């Protein structure tokens, strides 16, 4: 950290505080939310509910959902926790695309039309926006998402160069939100495909220089439901809220499986 204590004069700010800093009124606007709802306790049919709420410029879709839940209809159900895009609870389909509700600002949407909110596709819907995540985590568990190192542990750390560390950096960012897997047209078809998230997490270990079980993971993903089912549709990459290059990771795994069998 640099210490800016010795500067001769206070560094010039590029803005006139009185104007921009004094801040105008945070704009408020009305948003219509259309949520696809389903509660098997009361009906086998899914339905669309619609509410119009007044929201502010800094509000996100999650805030609008909360507003409905807290002020209008307490039975509206969705998962959430951190509210800033790091826990992966609230992947849902917003205006047709998988997003984290806590990362989509309402003002970035076209609020002249209703905002459509649906559960993510391809996993069994349990209630409203909540889906059963178990099949998703099952695939994750199957790819051995943990370090395997059979050599005797050194007293200190295992040495790894910054370049070796960089090799799998991208895929360590995954928060297991399922936005990718549930955006994949192949996964939608029968839910048998391992799915991008499982492959991303396998990639994280396959390319970790400290790990010894890469071959086993490649074998697992050489399954008929493994990497070969990916048709490079890139929906996963587009959906990933962490900006992981998911398809790239999948392609690297495919090439690794190929190289290994040759």
């Amino acid at each position, binding site marked *: *950290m*640099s210490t800016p*204590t010795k500067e001769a004069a206070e560094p010039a*700010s*590029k*803005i006139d*505080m*009185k104007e921009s*800093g*004094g*801040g*105008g*009124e945070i704009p408020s606007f009305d948003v219509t939310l259309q949520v696809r709802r389903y509660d*098997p*306790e*009361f009906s086998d049919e899914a339905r669309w509910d619609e509410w119009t709420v007044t929201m502010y410029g*800094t509000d*996100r879709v999650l805030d609008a959902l909360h507003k409905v*839940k*807290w*002020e209008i209809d*307490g*039975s509206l*159900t969705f998962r*959430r*926790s*951190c*509210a*800033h*895009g*790091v*826990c*992966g*609870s609230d992947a849902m389909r917003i205006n047709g695309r998988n997003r984290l509700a806590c990362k989509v600002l309402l*003002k970035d949407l076209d609020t002249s039309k209703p905002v459509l909110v649906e559960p993510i596709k391809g996993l069994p819907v*349990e*209630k*409203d926006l*909540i889906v059963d*995540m178990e099949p998703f*985590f099952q695939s994750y568990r199957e790819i051995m*998402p*943990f*370090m395997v190192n059979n050599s005797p542990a050194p007293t*200190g*750390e*295992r*040495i*790894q*160069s*910054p370049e070796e*560390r960089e090799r799998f*950096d991208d895929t*360590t960012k*995954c*928060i*297991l939100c399922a936005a990718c897997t549930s955006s994949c047209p192949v996964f939608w078809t029968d839910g048998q495909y391992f799915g991008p998230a499982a492959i991303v997490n396998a990639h994280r270990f396959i390319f*970790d220089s*400290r*790990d010894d079980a890469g071959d086993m993971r490649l074998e697992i993903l050489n399954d008929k439901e493994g990497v070969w089912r990916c048709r490079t549709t890139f929906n996963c990459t587009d959906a990933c809220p962490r900006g992981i290059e998911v398809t790239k990771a999948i392609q690297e795994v495919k090439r690794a499986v190929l190289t290994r069998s040759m």
Partner: protein
Amino acid sequence: MQVHKYDVVIVGAGGAGMRAAIESGQRAHTAVLTKLYPTRSHTGAAQGGMCAALANVEEDNWEWHTFDTVKGGDYLVDQDAAEVMAKEAIDAVLDLEKMGLPFNRTPEGKIDQRRFGGHTRDHGKAAVRRACYAADRTGHMILQTLYQNCVKHNVEFYNEYYVLDLLTVDEEVTREDGTTYMQKKTAGVVSYDLANGEIHVFQAKSVVFATGGLGKIFKTTSNAHTLTADGMALAYRAGIPLEDMEFVQFHPTGLAGLGILLSEAARGEGAILRNSEGERFMERYAPTIKDLAPRDIVARSMANEVREGRGAGPNKDYVLLDLTHLEPAHIDAKLPDITEFARTYLGVEPYTEPVPVFPTCHYAMGGVPTNVNAEVLQDNDTVVPGLYAAGEVACVSVHGSNRLGTNSLLDINVFGKRAGLAAAEYAATAEFVDIPENPTAFTENQLNAMRASTGGERTSTLRTELQETMDANMQVFRSEETIKEALAVIADLRLRYKNVQIQDKGKRFNLDLLEAVELGFLLDMAEVMTVAALHRKESRGGHYREDFPERDDENFMLHSMMYLDPESSTDGTNGIRADTKPVVFTRYEPMERKY
């Protein structure tokens, strides 16, 4: 009602819970109950790093780390515990590395370390590189790595199981001198399956609480929606005291209105705090180190600007973090997370616009009292057999009145591991304690009453009122007047809470119901915090009393201990008995805390 029987039940699957589960799961029949999928826990939000005196990049040792921790906590730290933590920090980091955590590396391939506020070499001589980190997502990597190892060791998770009651049994024990006391014993927990609303009883020899913090007591917080003080409230309701609850850390730079954390690194890189007039106000409060003053001082200065009408924004309720004089390339290189948060959430472009910030409730220094083996205490020194606590829910106390950055990720690993080991070891020889009769009665009555209520009060209204009063009266400035104001509001809210009515009458995923239950935890803990604050008539660390602005070692070099006690009445609040506990000193004499 369904009954399960496990040697060890761990409540919470954040960093502390899963670290415990990895140890206990390999030694005893263990279940982890968590109201969230493990990887949703808030440990994943931590960015900065985890400290350990590895001395990988420069000279360092655990004794210096102990000193920094003690001093950072304004000497209210139990020094024996701080020593344990600083000493075991090294293994804690190496354990994680061997579990696979992808730490950033030095050119030689060792774990890289960086500086962090309050961590110094040789007792304050200069800043030291002690924080081990994985980019700007150390907490995320810790959470993922621990979960991965739980998968590896086949830990049994009960996901989306809310623990709503701690089952203990009181037994009369006669001391050597003939006097008697009530010894608590752990029998198990009662939990609620979110998916279908069924109640499950878990009988266990050992129960480990690792339920995290209480940020949602406040309106502005860096904490998750789900951090509602559950574990503290459950322990408290079961008759366990709570220690040092008045100490809450407010982080200076939360995104205004949202509370999302912007790391201290921003100011380290030269960002400047300004008020609505564009003035660099920290020059007035800390003329030499200005914006880089300690967290509590900066937070208070910011709040003071707002209070005196120099806040920015339409409601004049925040100040501005100005990065516009920095090169965009520099901002991108050093502060990518900050720029992303500011853009995503406030739509503010930090290259050209100042970012609205305000202190945000960040961390609870207090909690369920434990000794260094993570064993929960039912008073100043009696251990409750079979009950353990670790992580933010616990108070060991290693953070005293103010936690140093990076010491919490360390805390959850060191004491999480200790809790898991101790719980398994205890379970190896202990007998099950019989579950009390009607174990689910309390929980079921509570839930049924809420389901049936027609009182018309909304959970969200009460919660908002609580959070607003806490922000207004119990934040960085407190005085007898504001504390009493908060107490009055809380008392009123507690009455209204009886009339809380929920709208979702279903069994499946009834989060409406659970939010109402969580509000009960928040109200209880807000009250305890406020009463504790009322009793501490001094200013120390995160607790600042305008009517007592000085630290008062003579009268208050003591931990506070708050007991649920229906017979007691303190300053107008009924039901809380305030007591104290001595602070443990080993090598460091209290000094004035200045940097």
